[in-house]
């Protein structure tokens, strides 16, 4: 039985937890607020918190000057493409490992995981060289392939842990009822697998969106996604806080929203099922 909690204690908990929560969230909040200020207000001392002339100007400037939409589009193609491609390769693999396990299944899973541990910088030049030879340096195709490969182990693992939870008895029952293999896959397994596949898609889209080693090192002007676009603000000219904030807000907003939906999957996906 749960303990009765005094209201005082609950008020105190609420106060402390909210304070810490807001403190941790503050840099994001401040960035969003700054994006609506003028450049002068953005650096004013003392800082202005809420009472300033809200403006959308920065968003317009960022889009106009740097063609923000192109970077956004690159991010969407690269993150989306690598995730979908990864799922196409991983679903059959995870499927067969979960439903037709063999003695080697465990070893294969662990080996796949070990490829994820390979430090990217250790293979930077070979990849760079291969990309030049294949003519895919600074192309979206190249990045889709690399990000698909680096996330493939996580995709396989997540799908495997989800598929594992589909009870085998249901399959047997449907077989007894005379379902063909096609029916079995289409009407029994797929509906149960969809939530797991969706969660995997979501988390890997986020990971690919935020990936900042290969996207920085393998792109220049053409295929640069938002990570690289934001990095270009590291050597700015003139006042740029409000513009940096506007660009940042646009780059993180969609992912923050998606991320909040994927809290639970985050634990499962990044601990490889070791914590559920």
């Amino acid at each position, binding site marked *: 039985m749960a303990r009765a909690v005094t209201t005082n204690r609950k008020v105190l908990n609420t106060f402390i937890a909210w304070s810490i929560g807001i403190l941790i969230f503050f840099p994001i909040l401040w960035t969003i607020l700054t994006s609506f200020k003028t450049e002068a207000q953005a650096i004013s001392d003392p800082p202005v918190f809420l009472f300033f002339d809200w403006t959308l100007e920065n968003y317009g400037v960022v889009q106009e000057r740097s063609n923000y939409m192109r970077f956004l589009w690159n991010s969407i193609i690269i993150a989306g493409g690598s995730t979908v491609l990864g799922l196409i390769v991983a679903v059959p693999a995870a499927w067969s490992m979960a439903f037709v396990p063999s003695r080697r299944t465990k070893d294969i899973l662990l080996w796949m995981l070990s490829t994820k541990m390979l430090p990217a910088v250790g293979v930077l030049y070979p990849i760079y060289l291969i990309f030049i030879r294949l003519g895919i340096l600074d192309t979206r195709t190249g990045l889709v392939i690399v990000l698909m490969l680096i996330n493939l182990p996580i995709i396989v693992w997540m799908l495997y842990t989800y598929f594992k939870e589909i009870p085998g008895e249901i399959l047997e029952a449907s077989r007894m009822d005379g379902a063909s293999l096609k029916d079995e896959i289409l009407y029994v397994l797929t509906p149960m697998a969809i939530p797991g596949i969706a969660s995997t898609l979501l988390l890997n889209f986020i990971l690919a969106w935020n990936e900042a080693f290969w996207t*920085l090192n393998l792109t220049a002007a053409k295929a640069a996604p938002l990570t690289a676009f934001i990095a270009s603000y590291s050597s700015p000219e003139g006042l740029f806080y409000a513009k940096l904030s506007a660009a940042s807000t646009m780059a993180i907003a969609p992912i923050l929203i998606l991320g909040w939906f994927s809290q639970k999957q985050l634990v499962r996906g990044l601990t490889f099922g070791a914590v559920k």
Partner: protein
Amino acid sequence: MATEHSRSAARLMMAPAVILLLGWMLVPLTMTLLFSFKQYLPMRGGDLGWVGFENYVRFVGSSSFWPSIQVTLILVGGVLAITIVFGVILALLLDQPMWGQGIVRILVIAPFFVMPTVSALVWKNIFMDPVNGLFAHLWKFFGATPVEWLSQASIQSIIMIVSWQWLPFATLILLTAVQSLDSEQLEAAEMDGAPFHMRFAFIILPHLARAITIVVLIQTIFLLSIFAEIFVTTGGAFGTRTLTYLIFQRVLESQNVGLGSAGGVYAIILANIVAIFLMRIVGKNLDA
């Protein structure tokens, strides 16, 4: 249940993933290994032949090697310490009854979803800038001299930025573990008069041990290859050149591929030492 037919079908279904990952692992790794035994300067003559272990000796012998190892250890150790300590505290706090728990969770988790270049640049400019940053305003308000964070306290600043990014991850995993704690055991201990620090040391902490180990191992693997946060803040200056960053500079900036590849092999070995421990835990979990 599995027939011979379904087994071969299963192998066929696995093939694309296995072949792709095998290629992804073997091809670049073999190349790195080959380059590491060569004098290879793409901008100054290209492949100049085999040099044996010279690159390995030179990489370790260079004056930037040991400092880079030191910086790497401080960065990884610092971030781990901060995220674990605060992660445990936050997890215990978030597990308490309160109003608006869901919203607090969302606020705490948010930094994890911010792309590394954004969080590094926002911290660098809007918070840590010695003239216009929020911290500078705050310091001046209290009559103190603003700190030049990323040059005077560079490694501490980067630890702080990275900890902010990874605290949500640690908190979330530890919270999952806290929530599986048997509350009856805790109540019994409380009724027997065990004060909080005793309950924490003898019930809560042992229960969290496994989750903490997992957080340490997974974060270590990701933290060893921290790149963007350094790339856009200090560019490896002011004593923030980690092993990863040193290799990056050798390979792409000074275009000494042989030397950089030898460094890469060291980094791969280092990551594998950590990985072995992680795999053991994950592997055990698969059996269960």
